Structures are given as C-alpha cells and as structure tokens.
C-alpha cells in the first residue's frame, strides 16, 4: 500500500499540486486521472521520487520515502517498476537486453536464471518472439509491452504506469489495460496508473483519484463514475459525446 500525505509542489511561481493526500491499495490498479495540466504526472513523479515534493510524505508500506535515509530510498526504488509514457527503452539494447537490464545490474542471478525470467516476462506480455529486436524495429504498443516486461522482471511490489495508452489504438489500449489489471492481481502489486483515458477508467478503474487544478476533488471506483456530484469531475467524464449519450439514456 502507498499513502501520500499533503503533497504540494511548485515550479517557480506556479503551484502544481496543492496538498494532495490519498491511499493506493494493493493488488489492484489505482488510477490518477484528470485533464491535461492538472498535475497527474507531477504527482506520479513525486511518488516515485523523480521530483521532490515541497511538502508532504510518501509512505511505502509505512516507510517514509523522503525520510532522508538514502539507503531506504534505494531499497524502496529497487522494489519499484515503472512503465514510462514513451516506453523509455534503451535504444542501444535489444528487447531482451532491455528486459534483462534490471536483473544484470541489481541481482546476482546466473545468466540462465535471468534468461528464464526474461523469457517468462516477455511471454507474459505476449512478445515471446521479439527477443532480438531493437526498440527502433517494434511498434509503439510493443514498446509499451516491453516496458511492462522490464517493469515486472524484478518482481516489484509497486508498479507505476504513466499514460500507458497514449498514442495507442483502442484495441491495443484495451490489451495494455488488461495486462496491467492482470499483472497487478497476479503479482499482488500496488499499481498506480496515470491516465486521462475514459476507456481505462471504465475498464480497470478499481480505485480512481480525480485531480483538478492541483487538488484531489473526487475519489471512487468505476461503478461510481456516473453518480458523482462534483461538477468538475462530471464535466471531465461527460465531455465525451459517448458518455453524454449514456447519461441521457
């Protein structure tokens, strides 16, 4: 479980996050949603430690990430896996080397053990025949799946996904969403997904946090989306014509 308490973050004069608190539960995808520029990605970066919040705490199973203990920070980070928006695959390495990379650096596993784990993860994301391909030779959807395989290869306790569906067609988006849902349940990970994709909300939104202008204004799950009384959230959800027609029905 990950808890965030009173997270604020400013860049110069502009305050992006204004005291965001919440809890992200284990074994299911927790979604952070909101319109562009509301601070979703900044919040995720604060949680994983890529951006240091001005105030507030981030607790990983009651361990304070920003306690100042450098070794604790490294220990927690080695329990994380992250899927970046563009995949963030290492250009000079093959798909297999990309996935094996965390094991090469962070573990003392033997080569065969590492290879078995890599093959397992690539098979799990449906890419069993892409081992020797370079990132430049595969599609955007495949890059995301390789990114997921790399994120889970080290058996993380926490999985973070930054806009996993951006730039993908609807079918591939559903595939990625399902994969995130299945993996979260299968490996009992605390998963946080930043998205503004309505399909993801409706598909895997077991727990949803809605951000508006740096504040958390709504929290719930996919079944409660249409029953909200928060006007900012309503405007976000029903901005889509399809959702609007559903409401009219």
């Amino acid at each position, binding site marked *: 479980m990950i808890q965030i308490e009173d997270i604020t973050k400013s860049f110069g004069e502009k305050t992006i996050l204004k005291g965001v608190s919440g809890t992200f539960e284990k074994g299911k995808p927790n979604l952070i949603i909101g319109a562009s520029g509301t601070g979703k990605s900044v919040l995720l970066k604060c949680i*994983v*430690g*890529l951006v240091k919040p001005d105030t507030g705490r981030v607790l990983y199973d009651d361990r304070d990430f920003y306690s100042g203990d*450098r070794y604790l920070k*490294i*220990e*927690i*980070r*080695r329990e*994380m*896996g*992250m899927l*970046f*928006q*563009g995949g*963030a*695959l*290492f*250009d000079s390495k093959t798909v297999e080397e990309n996935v094996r*990379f*965390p094991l*090469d*650096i*962070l573990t003392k596993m033997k080569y065969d053990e590492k290879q078995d784990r890599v093959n397992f993860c690539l098979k799990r994301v449906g890419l069993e025949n892409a081992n020797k391909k370079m990132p430049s030779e595969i599609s955007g959807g495949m890059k995301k799946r390789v990114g997921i395989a790399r994120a889970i290869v*080290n058996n993380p306790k926490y999985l*973070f996904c930054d806009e996993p569906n951006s730039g993908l067609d609807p079918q591939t988006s559903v595939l990625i969403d399902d994969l995130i849902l299945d993996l979260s349940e299968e490996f009992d990970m605390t998963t946080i997904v930043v998205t503004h994709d309505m399909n993801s909300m409706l598909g895997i939104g077991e727990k949803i946090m809605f951000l508006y202008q740096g504040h958390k204004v709504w929290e719930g799950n996919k079944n409660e989306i249409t029953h909200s009384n928060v006007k900012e959230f309503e405007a976000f959800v029903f901005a889509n014509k399809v959702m609007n027609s559903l409401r009219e029905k």
Partner: protein
Amino acid sequence: MITEIGKYFIFIRTLFINRESFRTYYKLVLEESVTIGIGSLFLVALVSTFMGAVTTVQTAFNMVSPLIPDYVISQVVREMTVLELAPTIIAVIYAGKVGSSMAGGLGTMRITEQIDALEVMGINSASYLVLPKVIASLLMFPLLVIVAGVCALVGGYVVGVLGEIITPNDYVFGLRFSYNEFTVIFALIKAVVFSFLVSSISSYQGYYTEGGALEVGVSSTKAVTNSVIAVLLADYFLAQLLLVK
C-alpha cells in the same frame, strides 16, 4: 555562472556516490574506450599529420637567415607539437567530436525518459552513464595525444624530406637536439586534465538537458563551447604552474 559551476561540482560528486559494482563499470568502460579511442583515431591521425606537415613548411618559410641551421625546423616542430599542438588542438577536436556526441547521447536519454527509468530502478544514473565515459576518456585521450604527437612528427618528416626542405638526417638531429623529456610529461599531464574537463563538462551539459530535440542540439553546442573554454583556461594555468620557474 557561479550557480552553474557549483552545480557542475555537485554533479561530479554524484558520480562517486552509490556507485554500482566494479563488474558493472568494467564492460561499460571497455565499450566507451572503443567508441572514444578507436572512433577518434582516424580524425586525430589525419589532423595531426597535416598539423606537423604545415608546421614544417611554415617554419621553413619563416627561417630567412642562412645562419640558422636547418635542424632548427624539426626542433621547432617538435616543441610546438609536443608542448601545444598535440594536447591542446587535439583536445579542441576531441571536444567537437566526442564531447558533442556525449552531450547529445545523454540529452536524448534525458528527454526520452531513459535516465528517469534508471533512477526509478534505484540506479545512480549519473554514475552509471557518466563515470565510464570519464574513465574511458582519461584512459584513451593521453593515448590519442601520443598518436597525435607521433603523426605530427612523421607528417613533418615526410613533407620536409619530400619537399626538399630539410634532409632526413637534419630532421632527426633536430628532433633529438636539446631534448627535454619533461615536455612529454607535461603534454601527458595536460592530456589527462583536458580529457577530464571535456568528458565531464560535456556529460554535465547532456545530463541536465531539459525540453526536446532542439534543446539536445543546444546542449551539444554548449558542451563544445564550454569544454573548449575550459581547455584553454586549463592550458594557460598548467603552463603557468608547471613551466614558469
């Protein structure tokens, strides 16, 4: 400016904190050494050969007094090459070729979130990416300077002899005449200092790239400019420190 210099020194410090195992760096240093050393060999040899050749021709052109013996030409070529041209001019070329490539590579990794990916894995990205480049530079650049020195002297010899500017015996005699071995040591000290400056400044510029493709280009340009300025300043201070009695 002061803030930037302070940030640079903090960056240098981070290279040595929470490093990965020696095993991890060993392969990376070898890979970087091949890229930096072998990759620069042709350009360094070409530039330095012509540098030696041109220095020979121009020194001969300027020696108008018949009282000055011919072997002084190769003596001048030797002193200029070893003391200044080989380490400094090659460092400037090195900054243009290797420094810009380091900054561009790291800048691209930054904007495509590859550096963030390393950080999230709990890896000290600065140390993992930059330290091997700095170590490889420290190992390879002095060797490139030695190659440059030899090529320049050979270039001077070939042009001097083929152009009938100087006889082979005079050229070799001039190279040996009044030779002070400290000049070679001084050149190698300069090579070590310059290689550190070029690799660390270029990496610093690339590592802290913000924005997109345009900013990667800006970082590469800044890397070359700042490295060359640092090399020239260091060149003066080292000369003042080690040569002036």
